[in-house]
């Protein structure tokens, strides 16, 4: 359900940047979304289709680049991908870790005409 608020914020950024560039049309929106954010891309697309109606971003396609959740082990300092039910370091079995990727949520770029 937080996709509505997220899509709204994202759409504001897109419109603002497109206007600054004096763009006539936004054709593509490139988003980067971390796996841990729980943002459902289908929901973002669904809300965006409503919001962009009668704007310069109408019919713009959206690309979602998903960043896998990654952690660094505090014991051996190695990095590894976080699996759903395994938050233990596969290198040394250490179990104190820091999440270093997977919380991203930003607009990377837009393509305009």
């Amino acid at each position, binding site marked *: 359900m937080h996709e509505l*608020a997220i899509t709204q914020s994202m759409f504001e950024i897109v419109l603002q940047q497109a206007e600054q560039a004096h763009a006539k049309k936004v054709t593509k929106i490139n988003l980067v979304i971390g796996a841990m954010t729980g943002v459902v891309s289908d929901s973002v697309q669904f809300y965006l289709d409503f919001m962009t109606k009668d704007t310069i971003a109408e019919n713009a396609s959206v690309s979602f680049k998903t960043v896998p*959740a990654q952690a660094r082990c505090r014991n051996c300092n190695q990095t590894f991908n976080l699996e*759903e039910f395994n938050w233990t370091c596969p290198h040394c079995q250490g179990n*104190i870790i820091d999440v270093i990727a997977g919380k991203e949520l930003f607009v990377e770029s837009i393509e305009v005409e």
Partner: protein
Amino acid sequence: MEIKILKNILGANDRIAAKNRELLDAHKIFAVNIMASPGAGKTSVVLQTIRALQDGVRIGVIEGDISSSIDAELVAKQDVPVVQINTGGECHLEAVQVQDALNNLPLAEIDLLLIENVGNLVCPAEFTLGEHLKVLIASVPEGDDKPFKYPLMFNTVDALVLNKIDLLPYVKFNVDGFTKTVKNINAKAEIFKVSCTTGEGITTWAKWLNSRMGKPLKKRITST
């Protein structure tokens, strides 16, 4: 033509949260964002915390719910200022709603602001409100597997209060395993075990919270 942007989608919320933080700091108010799934006992922990600290700390409360003012009415009975936010469908509080609520609270008369978020383990983790401390209330009947299912929430918080420990004899819940998992996902999280029904563990939690406020308290105003 491609335009590089690299802008945080939640930047607008973060900016308002920073303003909230400035306002809170200007009034020397310590704010706590209390999050949990529905029914974990957020309001009960708020009420118990008020009872435990009310003699030395002036407390204010913001209640976030999708609808109704049931919680705010419960809190108001404790004789503390309270504002109810109804999100009308949104599953989390946002900084702008807290900004409105702050405008409706007697800030000069508050040392500790407890913000009860909407019951949800997903969305509130994303939206910072300007708080100094994020606290998650988990509860025994929810099961001990929740840290794996909602890692962002468990990874985000400063403290975790495990509520309803009076139910441990009746529910399959591995406290040691749960604690280990939480520490694994979030090494910095302080963990407290409480029961709002029996009052067990509340004093330890309230004392820690009070110590985290870390500022000399304003003199308590007693009504004349």
